């Protein structure tokens, strides 16, 4: 049996391994996150109260404006940045911000990560090969 995985076009950044956190809701740094702590703060968000620090995070889509361009670097500076970010659909500012911060990024993954992983699974994200696999 092949290893549980999702794939997409080649992404950005080096390989990274960590715990995956899956969100059913979309992501906006300005609207959804406490940028001091890296914790999802928007009331009613699927990940409300969840820290993204050190995690590999999946969001189906994104929202909001250009604040994301600087915000990921700020999260790195405060030691609370995610280890990697995977999107269904994303937008330029998310990727511009992740590139600036040096955080691995992928998009347009299939199948739906919810059908392959559970939050807490250990995964390896390999942007250059366009694959996220469960490990261990």
């Amino acid at each position, binding site marked *: 049996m092949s290893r549980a995985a999702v794939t997409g076009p080649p992404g950005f950044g080096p390989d990274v391994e960590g715990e995956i956190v899956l969100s059913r809701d979309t992501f906006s740094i300005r609207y959804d996150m406490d940028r001091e702590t890296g914790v999802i703060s928007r009331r009613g968000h699927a990940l409300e109260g969840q820290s993204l620090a050190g995690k590999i995070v999946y969001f189906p889509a994104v929202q909001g404006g250009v604040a994301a361009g*600087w915000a990921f670097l700020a999260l790195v500076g405060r030691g609370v940045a995610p280890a990697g970010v995977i999107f269904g659909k994303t937008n330029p500012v998310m990727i511009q911000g992740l590139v600036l911060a040096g955080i691995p990024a992928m998009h347009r993954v299939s199948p739906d990560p919810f059908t392959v992983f559970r939050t807490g699974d250990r995964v390896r994200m390999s942007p250059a090969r366009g694959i996220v696999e469960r490990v261990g």
Partner: protein
Amino acid sequence: MELSEREQRIRAGEMGEAARIAIEQQIAVGEFFGAERFVPVSSVHMMGDMEVMGDAGFAFIQDLVDKGARFTVPVTTNARCVDFERAADVRQDPALVARERRLVENLRRLGALQVDTCINYQTVYQPHFGEHLAWGDTGTVIWANSVCGARTNYEAGPAAVAAGITGVTPAYGFHLDDQRVGGPRFEVRCALRDWADWGALGGIVGRRTLDYWTVPVLAGLDGRPGPDDLKHFGAALASYGSCAMFHMVGVTPEARTEAEAYRGRTPPATHVIDDAALDAFYRTYPENQPEADAVIFSGPQLSLLELRRVVELLAGRRVHGNTALLITTNFAVRDMAVRLGYVKAIEDAGGRVLAGSCWYIMEPAKMARAHGWRNIVTNSAKMANIIGGYRLHPILRRTDLCIEAAVTGRLPDEARLA
């Protein structure tokens, strides 16, 4: 990506270390989105203030300055989190103000035109059809793509800085013809009487679209929108829907007809927006108390025509003692409004006109706490959307009702929905 000879020399470091870093980031972003080449840009508009940048962003800019970076194309700055002249007056954090001053000095060293405006397209730089840009602030991007027929993606602060240094941007997304084809069709059957209505329309379309890569098409509009109608519509559509472009049939230059908007393709879906839909949108912003604590016109900064309307609606009356009236605009409009007597009229009424900032980035939660504001009454759908995320209580209403709330200190009966 295929690089020109100049771009290859930049990548090799021949134009300095800062330019090399800048183009490497642009290549990474371009390749992520499948860009095959760069396009030269004639104007860059950047968002960079301490509220979004944090210390790490400040250090990044400082590093570029230390490496001797200089912008090679005109770079204008977006609204920032501080009005230096009135910071104490509106109780902004002095530490934030001090760091913002140092940041501004560094941006000037890079060669930025520090205009601090999110309505550059109304006051500083009017792009023409087909012109490639690297603009940040979503409201400016959606205006440039939709109203001008210019071409830009959302360029966040660091991406805009990179484009300012290299003079080019990766050609993906809205730089390409295919990305600009119309998407879902929205048949507009509601009466649009106020800027707030246009913002609400943008919010409705945005909530149903929710995708950067989709270009909604507005059809069936009665009459022609004014510039501030389009401004509120676009800003809200970008805020609620992350959209970077719309077509408005008979209004925007790439949609003189519906067929042109769709380039011969069939609309994927049609939605009807009627008065009930508009009403339902307002109802997502119910009042939490009879009193209006703060009435704020901002997001985007006000044009001269919007300031004139505020003065007309105030009609010489004073703002209620328990209510604050705050307005943000840019320096150019403020100076004109001073000449025309609008600023004096607003200040005589007890209101304040801030310049160079936009309220939702002025640490609004802190400011609201410092003043004890429990709600914010506004005619800006964009601002209502954003500050809702900051756990403030936004109340979106038409401009005349906002002014009545400011003058009487209470939401007028016709503004009460609960």
